């Protein structure tokens, strides 16, 4: 199956995503320039991290207007798996492909660390090989990762099962200490109503090799193979 990884001016996680898919999953992946308008030849899409357009206005606020985003919206609408990581998550919320917003970290500082997240929802193409309640250790690196929705929407997300990952302690408890950025309800990742579009602040693409700290990220990326390979076959690719 073919992974398409979108490069905006200022993306800097695109190369890591490429390496994770190629080295970690052994699947073909290509970088897609932000001016691209046809993404139909890819079986899934990754919107990587970075500082698209410098993030000078608000993280992701400019990138959502890039030509490629129309194509991303079209593919998302058609049900193709889309994963937004860090800045990619911010872009997907700005583009209203995902609910909520990402605010400045509660500490007002950029934070780079390894965190534990708990898998809350496995009925998405990006988590279907995982087990509910399973813990993953992943790196974070962001300044604007405080997930926010109003109380009503939060209840709606809970009800609809759209919360995919939460920050937890090493033994799986949701506590304030385990929350690195002040996200509401310790939310680290969410999905759209249909479940095919997922966004998260932690970086699964940086965790594909134990030599550099862990390989739990591969469990997320590998989950998409089930849906992706089906899509690939339907395109007539073996």
């Amino acid at each position: 199956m073919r992974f398409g990884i979108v490069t905006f001016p200022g993306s800097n996680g695109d190369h890591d995503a490429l390496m994770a898919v190629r080295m970690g999953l052994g699947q073909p992946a290509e970088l897609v320039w932000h001016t691209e308008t046809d993404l139909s030849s890819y079986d899934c899409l990754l919107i990587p991290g970075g500082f698209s357009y410098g993030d000078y206005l608000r993280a992701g606020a400019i990138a959502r207007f890039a030509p490629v985003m129309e194509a991303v919206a079209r593919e998302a609408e058609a049900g193709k798996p889309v994963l937004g990581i860090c800045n990619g998550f911010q872009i997907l919320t700005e583009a209203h492909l995902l609910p909520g917003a990402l605010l400045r970290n509660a500490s007002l500082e950029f934070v780079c660390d390894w965190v534990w997240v708990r898998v809350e929802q496995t009925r998405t193409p990006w988590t279907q090989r995982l087990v509910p309640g399973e813990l993953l250790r992943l790196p974070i690196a962001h300044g604007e990762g405080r997930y926010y929705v109003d109380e009503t929407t939060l209840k709606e997300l809970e009800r609809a099962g759209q919360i995919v990952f939460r920050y937890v302690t090493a033994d799986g408890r949701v506590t304030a200490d385990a929350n690195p950025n002040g996200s509401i309800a310790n939310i680290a990742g969410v999905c759209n109503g249909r479940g095919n579009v997922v966004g998260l602040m932690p970086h699964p693409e940086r965790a594909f090799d134990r030599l550099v700290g862990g390989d739990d990220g591969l469990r997320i990326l590998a989950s998409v193979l089930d849906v992706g390979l089906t899509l690939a076959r339907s395109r007539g690719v073996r």
Partner: protein
Amino acid sequence: MGIGARMTVTPELLREVALTAEEYRRAVELLGREPNRLELGMIGALWSEHCGYKHSRPLLRRFPTSGPHVVQGPGENAGAVELGDGLVVVLKIESHNHPSAVEPFQGAATGVGGIVRDIFAMGARPIALVDSLRFGPLEEARQQYLFHGVVGGIGWYGNCLGIPTVAGDVFFMSEYRQNPLVNAMCVGIAQREALVRARASGVGNLVVLVGADTGRDGIHGATFASVEDPERSHRGVVQVGNPFLEKLLLEACLEVLGTGVVVAMQDLGAAGLTSASAEIAARGGTGIELEVTAVPRREAGMTPYEVMLSESQERMLLVVRPEGLERVLAIFHRWDLHAVVVGRVTDDGCLRVLEDGKTVAELPVQLLTDWCPTYVREAREADEIRARRSFDPRSLPDLEARDVGAVLEQLLRSPNIASRQPIYRTYDHTIMTNTVLAPGQGEAAVLRVKGHRFGIAVKTDCNPRYCLLDPRLGAQHAVAEATRNVSCVGAEPLAITDCLNFGNPERPEVYYQLVQAIEGMAEACEALGVPVVSGNVSLYNETEGRSIPPTPVVGVVGRLEDVHRRVGMGFAGEGVVFLLGPQRATLGASEYLAHRFGIVGGTPPALDLELERRVQVLVRDAIHRGIVLAAHDCSEGGLLVAVAESCIVGGIGGRFRIDPLLEANGRLDETVFGEAASRVLVQVPFGAEGTLLALAHAHGVPIYEFGRLGGERLVVDGLLDHPLGALAEAWRRGLRRM
């Protein structure tokens, strides 16, 4: 103004361009006429200490700069050493002290921007950033402002670029109050045959300027960095960084270099277009003609003087073969970058500036570069330093055994010792997925190189207290400690990049420090077999006659044969801990003396460079054999601080004995908190003790069985029994209190 125009040279004018009357006369003599206003500004900028190395150039010849691994020594944008498999590692460190003193956030940020451009100008992909920082006491509000500004600026720029900041060092000392230091180092990787040199060659080749438009910012930045008391100057001299633009520039320049039509690349730093064009022409033995009206500007009405001396950030100068111009411009256009032809390479050895085709400046390139005056000054050690050094720490009462635990906690909380996590947590250190040993995990950072077995280690060091009390010995220590740290992760030190930070060299006491420190560094480099391949000098770091301590920061890059064989600093489960190296220590120049008694005095620890070399070889040998579980350099704070740090990081306690050491030292304070060179704590698994002992004897290194690991307390027989949690809390909170 044409080049023949008359001009009255006043003392004010010369002061503005920072030239002495004598230097002006020299310029007139070399030129054979009086320079005009523009030419005078260009000469002043390139003859500044910052660009011309007037005081350091004669001394820097002392450094060993060649070796079997060296591919590119000093003189280019950065140095380069062989890694194997056709790859080279490129390294360079640079100061941004004066701007950071005035505007810490932007000053530090643009320091990162500048050093990154030096690396990709060589055709290398930047893979790591390292920072060496110095501030005054962190308890003071202004120092916190500087500290948070600098750390914030480094993070902002590096994080946005997507280059991990993986290591560094920071030290707090009252002498840095008015003059903080910000030294940024960058490491890159390139194919050996793809290395680019900044040498303008090929008459008729085109000079292309790419990146930011040129504004009125930073004019006279180079001269500003060459005078005392930065705070008195105004903030307008400090540039504002744009890391997003730099990211585009980085990617586009590396892509453009892949076309093979680029002859040379040079970043625009201090003295902007003047310095960049003079340097590439000088290295290429050619001339350059520039048309200033072709330079894209931010404002209307800028004079040729302003265009030639602007230090606007995020700009690069390229020399391109005419037939490849279209391809180059197309790539830059794709990255939304503004690139224009601003001149061409000539054969007359002149830097000629045109305005609308009319010559407005014409100077021999050599006059600007090679003919810059150099000075050898009077050197004399300050009496005050000699007096401080003669202080005898043994005149103080010895430490009481019952106070050891409390003092240990205090030292672990000291800003010079406490965990650096509050700093590196704000730096992205996992991006690029190469970070094998992240900040805080080892004595040096370790990076993998995807697709290769070998790895890279990197670290900076310099203990300014040692350097203040004895600059020659202190500089030797800087080289020894930096290379020792790299050895402790299992890497062989390959090369050094140095940043020499000093006060006003026109004062004999400061010049003495400069001469001595360079001598000491050179001696240590020779003894340890590590060449200096690049570096930077920052002088005039002083305010109202009060200089910073001599601070020769040493950045080291090492190579691990097998990156899987790296070793961290935290004790890894149970095992036996040995102390390698000298068993006697001194309180002279120690953190204990400074922290507990407020005394910066005494003689720094002696350093036997031959023993140092043997210790490093032993540590690497033991790691290579796979018997080392952890290795930790024993430096500031001494033995007990070192063992506590390794216990905290590893999350395991231990039981240690110091009786034989106490006997050797004679005093408790020296034994537990005294400092010494060439000491490393090493953990081996049970059963490997004999192998390590035999290796130590074979290498002629003193070895002492210090204790065994286990439990959750730090126990020293008859002296200390402390819960590890309390020590960890003190160490982790040290910098966070601020």
